[in-house]
């Protein structure tokens, strides 16, 4: 029998039991939708996070103190410019950029907001912060300029809330009597550097405002990524020694961080996709169940078909095609729903976690979803179809 005719007959039977068929394919659709959306979102997030750190994978961040990730930072003071020069001598280190980080109050039209000043060489912003600095509006700080600053979009939101203002590029904040013009707005926070609410400004200006010289952050560019762990250890040892402490200096690389982010994503994905597969197994059992009922209901029909010349294979394939048709339609709905869910979730994520996360919808995910659905259907249909095929025509015909 030709495949087209099998599909035609299968379709007739599914149409005969519309609600039943729909409910069965729905269970497959739910599983496929979950798998497809999770994979799309996962891939898109990893991609978006990766892009943000692009250009900073070869950077080691060094802090003068001990960091307990996400909980605490115990400082032993600050670095000096000389520390930077010393670190530059370590083999594998290409360049060092030192940054001041100080808390200050930013004023605007009589109101004040707490900010964290991050002062560095304006030329270093592009070179050391790399892809993390993606301008949404405006420009970077000009070389030699002393009254310019850039903030992230979320810092701007924070400022606007405190200052009850509608700050934009070109507006001027006053910090300790120094006027700073906002020249650019970054799309993202400098997430790799843990804290938001940061105002990026030239180091000299930061010194002028805070009257201090304290280097609180060193960004170290290395030229041998393979040795990143080794260089981190050397930096920590050197600075511990220079400051007379042990095991307090913290050097971490974005590469390590990225790896951790990816691992967390993978674990979450594996877990949730595991649940999705359970949903799919449940859907598959639903198909087995419905097909078994269908086979019993249609015993007489099977007998008729065999009596007028259907071979056991004809009957087998008829039921298999029916199961495959249910699951394929379910898969199709699931893939469409999965894409729709990803789109909705991505707008949420774009609003809260990662600004502007483009969805990566590869054909492999879409085709993969359909194939998983189809395979589920065929596996589920196998037992009922074999049962139908094995019926003896004379007994099946007698069935009422």
């Amino acid at each position, binding site marked *: 029998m030709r495949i087209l005719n099998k599909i035609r007959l299968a379709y007739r*039977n599914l149409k005969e039991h519309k609600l039943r068929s729909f409910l069965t394919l729905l269970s497959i659709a739910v599983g496929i939708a979950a798998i497809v959306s999770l994979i799309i979102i996962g891939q898109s997030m990893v991609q978006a996070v990766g892009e943000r750190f692009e250009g900073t994978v070869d950077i080691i961040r060094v802090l003068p103190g001990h960091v307990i990730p996400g909980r605490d930072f115990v400082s032993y003071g600050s670095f000096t410019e000389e520390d930077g020069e010393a670190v530059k001598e370590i083999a594998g280190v290409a360049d060092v950029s030192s940054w001041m980080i100080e808390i200050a109050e930013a004023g605007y039209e009589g109101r004040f907001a707490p900010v964290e000043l991050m002062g560095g060489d304006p030329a270093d912003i592009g070179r050391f912060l790399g892809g993390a600095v993606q301008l949404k509006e405006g420009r970077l700080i000009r070389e030699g300029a002393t009254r310019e600053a850039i903030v992230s979009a979320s810092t701007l939101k924070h400022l606007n809330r405190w200052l009850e203002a509608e700050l934009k590029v070109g507006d001027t904040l006053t910090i300790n009597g120094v006027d700073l013009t906002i020249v650019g707005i970054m799309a993202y926070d400098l997430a790799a550097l843990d804290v938001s609410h940061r105002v990026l400004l030239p180091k000299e200006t930061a010194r002028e405002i805070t009257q201090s010289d304290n280097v609180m952050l060193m960004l170290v560019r290395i030229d041998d990524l393979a040795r990143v762990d080794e260089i981190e250890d050397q930096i920590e040892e050197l600075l511990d020694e220079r400051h007379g402490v042990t095991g307090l200096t913290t050097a971490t690389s974005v590469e390590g961080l990225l790896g951790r982010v990816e691992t967390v994503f993978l674990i979450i994905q594996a877990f949730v996709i595991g649940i999705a597969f359970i949903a799919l197994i449940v859907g598959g059992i639903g198909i087995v169940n419905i097909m078994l009922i269908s086979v019993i209901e249609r015993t007489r029909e099977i007998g008729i078909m*065999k*009596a007028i010349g259907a*071979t056991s294979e004809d009957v087998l394939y008829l039921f298999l095609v029916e199961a495959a048709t249910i699951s394929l339609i379910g898969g199709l709905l699931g893939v469409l729903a999965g894409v729709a869910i990803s789109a909705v979730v991505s707008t949420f994520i774009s609003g809260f976690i990662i600004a502007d996360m483009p969805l990566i919808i590869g054909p492999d995910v879409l085709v993969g979803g359909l194939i998983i659905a189809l395979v589920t259907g065929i596996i589920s249909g196998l037992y009922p179809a074999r049962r139908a095929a094995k019926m003896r025509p004379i007994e099946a015909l007698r069935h009422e």
Partner: protein
Amino acid sequence: MIQATSITKVYGIGTIEIRALNGIDFNVKQGEFVAIQGPSGCGKSTLLNVLSCIDKPTSGTISIDSIDIAHLSDKALAKIRRDKIGFIFQSYNLIPTLNALENVMLPMMFAGKDNNKTSERAATLLEMVEMQERMKHKPSELSGGEQQRVAIARALSNDPLLIVGDEPTGNLDSKTGAAVMKILTELNREGRTVVVVTHDPAVAGTAHRVLQMKDGQFINNQSEQEEQT
């Protein structure tokens, strides 16, 4: 066309044995029209099922169109049913989800024939049984006589040499029954071999031979009855 020797069919192997067929011999020549009569439970339906390869005999040999079917596989038997035999049931047995045209196409679909040709042939056959107006109707929308005509068209779809009918007029009123018998008679005139089980006395008139069955055996031996015709 049919040579059957010492056919037995025993049901309920175990405590109670029922001999539905008791060493029956049965020969039908090509182009013959044979009617089988007898009280219910005499084994006539069983004989028909065995002859049309729907059921297997317990013992004995049968050849259909010179093919010994005793040792054929299920698949080969299905192909004989499909290509050589057209079976007409008392209760029509159309597939309820398919319309008349598709029901007639079904055996040709099983034979893997070309779709355009099958629908064309199915339409011609339905026209022949005067069902051309109702080709798109489902069985539930057809009367008993109409359903039986569709069933006859279906039986003819793969152009079988042998038409087998198990009480084909049993569920029909006498007028529709007569029309159905007329179609069968015409098919026989075209050269097809027809074997029917029937209670219908009118059929006895049209058949070349009428055989009486009782307790899984012909009442008189077959050769004797043959001589009478």
